[in-house]
């Protein structure tokens, strides 16, 4: 059993065990909003912080673990950066949970400045959180760099970015997986650099009392956070490009000029798309607001269009056998389109004034995460388990797929409807004026319970088989 198999199995076990816990936190929050439970505000916001950061964290590392595993098909992948990332991730998560549940850290997953200095019950929680962020950032940066170096050892940068395809040359071919992985890894580096600057400024204030500029801190926070979330989705797409054609019995995808163009656009434009998080910050220079609007259109549309077209073309008359892995990949793309449209609608300045502080926002990001990015990673996990154990989980296909997709669709629909009714987000209880928010919270919670059941069944299946991979070592 190879080291890469073992570390991938370790990632899968870790992520699939944390996933249902993070879902449970979300359900408890929705039940509290529905007045079925009575959580204290501190407990609610602690849950909100843990839920958001755990979900982003586990699915980022899982998407990266998938790419790391598949990359060995093209280049030599060294395992130590992945292991280093794993160890520092564990350290970071322990510190994070200590800060949240021991120190009452409850900033929400944005941890917007200056909240980390105030939204906690114990002073040490701020330090624990900053160290956690540092540990995660260093681990992931070294891991990303390790993968980038592995690619560049074989593919010069211009070839890895498929620039020769842009001018119409077809040889030597850059596989789409290499192109997407390279653009994503290059896109991640500035997010980590932004995180380093952000952490440095936080420490300057925490240790030296030097105040920071709130606008600068918000820009850096979203430079890091928004870019990270976007890039993890693109890692999932890379896995899809690599695995889906074979699952459908079709030849591998090839890099066409429009594919190269779309992903090179993503590389540059994704860095500026985060400006749409600052539409409400009127002191942000106006030109950046225009850039944010344009980038919000340019970054996702080519990627979505090219991927959706490719996937639909692959499925058409393919005679594909639908089991969990292809179902996860295919439905993931379809929901990515829906969530992407919801996000683009919100990223239009005029709409943002209406939608920004409503449940429309969690609606769209849960759509392209729970029903998009997570499904891409689950598709990879299911495929990996079959590769390692020969079990494709066919017994689970109907219950897991039905419960997860039905539950997920109902859950996000409750968010969309509540958002369209102008019900606000980030509140633990709804005031009387928007009391119908409680009804939609209950509907959302009930559908989310279906997702939790599906995930629990799936987790047992996956963990048992991945444990055997580890035990075989």
């Amino acid at each position, binding site marked *: 059993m190879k080291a890469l198999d073992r570390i991938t199995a370790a990632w899968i076990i870790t992520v699939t065990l944390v996933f249902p816990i993070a879902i449970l936190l979300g359900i408890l929050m929705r039940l509290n909003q529905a007045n079925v439970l009575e959580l204290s505000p501190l407990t609610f916001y602690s849950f909100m912080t843990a839920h958001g950061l755990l979900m982003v964290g586990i699915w980022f590392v899982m998407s990266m673990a998938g790419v790391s595993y598949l990359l060995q098909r093209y280049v030599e992948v060294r395992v130590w950066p992945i292991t280093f990332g794993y160890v520092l991730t564990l350290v970071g998560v322990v510190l994070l949970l200590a800060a949240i549940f021991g120190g009452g850290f409850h900033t929400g997953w944005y941890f917007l400045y200056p909240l980390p200095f105030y939204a906690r019950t114990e002073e040490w929680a701020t330090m624990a959180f900053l160290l956690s962020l540092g540990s995660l950032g260093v681990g992931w940066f070294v891991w990303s*760099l390790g993968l*980038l*170096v592995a690619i*560049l*050892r074989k593919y*010069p*940068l211009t070839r890895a970015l498929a620039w020769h395809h842009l001018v119409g040359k077809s040889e030597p071919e850059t596989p789409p997986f290499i192109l997407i992985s390279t653009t994503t890894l*290059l*896109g991640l*580096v*500035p*997010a980590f*650099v*932004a995180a380093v*600057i952000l952490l440095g*400024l936080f420490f*300057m204030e925490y240790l030296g*009392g*030097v*105040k*920071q*500029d709130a*606008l*600068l801190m918000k*820009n*850096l926070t979203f*430079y890091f956070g928004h870019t990270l979330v976007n890039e993890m989705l693109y890692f999932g797409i890379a896995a899809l490009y690599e695995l889906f054609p074979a699952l459908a019995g079709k030849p591998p995808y090839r890099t066409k000029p429009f594919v190269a163009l779309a992903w090179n656009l993503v590389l540059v434009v994704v*860095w500026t798309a985060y400006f749409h998080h600052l539409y409400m910050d*009127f*002191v942000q*220079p106006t030109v950046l607001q225009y850039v944010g609007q344009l980038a919000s259109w340019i970054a996702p549309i080519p990627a979505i269009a090219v991927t959706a077209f490719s996937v639909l073309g692959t499925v058409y008359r393919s005679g594909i056998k639908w089991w969990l892995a292809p179902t996860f990949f295919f439905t993931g793309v379809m929901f990515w389109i829906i969530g992407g449209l919801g996000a683009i609608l919100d990223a239009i300045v005029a709409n943002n004034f209406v939608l920004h502080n409503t449940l429309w926002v969690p609606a769209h990001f849960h759509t392209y995460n729970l029903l998009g990015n997570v499904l891409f990673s689950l598709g990879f996990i299911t495929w990996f388990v079959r590769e390692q154990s020969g079990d494709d989980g066919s017994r689970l296909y109907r219950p897991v797929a039905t419960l997860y997709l039905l539950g997920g669709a109902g859950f996000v629909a409750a968010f969309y409807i509540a958002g369209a009714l102008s019900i606000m987000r980030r509140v633990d209880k709804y005031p009387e004026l928007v009391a119908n928010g409680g009804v939609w919270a209950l509907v959302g919670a009930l559908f989310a319970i279906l997702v939790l059941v599906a995930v629990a069944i799936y987790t047992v299946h996956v963990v048992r088989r991945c444990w055997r991979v580890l035990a075989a070592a």
Partner: protein
Amino acid sequence: MLARLSGCLIVAPLLWAQLNEGHYYLRSVPDVPVTLITGEQRSLHHLLQSRAVLLTLFSSRCQGLCSPYLLYLKRELASPREFAVVALSFDPRDRLTDVAATAHRFGLAKASGWTWGLLHPTGAMSLLSTLGYAVRYDSSRADYDHSIVLFVLDRRGNILRRMEGFQDPALLKDLAREARGEFVLSYPLPSTDVALRCFELDKETGSWRLSMGMALLLVPPIASFALAGLVQLALALRRTQPPQP
């Protein structure tokens, strides 16, 4: 009474708070008794019941800025709509006739949207303290040194805005818009202990320019390309090195 006022509302501790207008945001003002020039007895919160209020304080005997300030308010807020202007005398020496005479002198005694009155000495101190209104009795001039401030109070008695001194009429218009319930943009001025600002403000001219904080946002993408280039270069150099014997 004069001594009590001077003692309790000493100027120095309030100076920093006067500059930090955000310090007063959503602070609830006490419901103090007020006598209007019509002779009616009211409470401050009663005056807020029907609409938001722009509140200013003055002394009828003031030899300083009160008169020009009231003229300035008259010019800019002559006939307020959807909010009221309330001018109250804080001076314990003032009688109702003094306040009424001041209102008549400015031609605002019967002006629509304007209310003139006298604070009762019993409630004056707690109100002035909550508002951060600096008052000091100067015995050499037999007059008060005091702030010139305009407050926006919402219908629940909370401070929404606080504007010190004579300001650009555009800012006064902002206060009026805020009182009408419109969303008015505001941002705290950068303090001197901020490390890297996004903007530098010239307080003399009111002009601003981008600063190093914004420039810092260029570092991540440049670092990304530089890092990729360096890795590429290092790998290329390694490839060109002859194998070790």
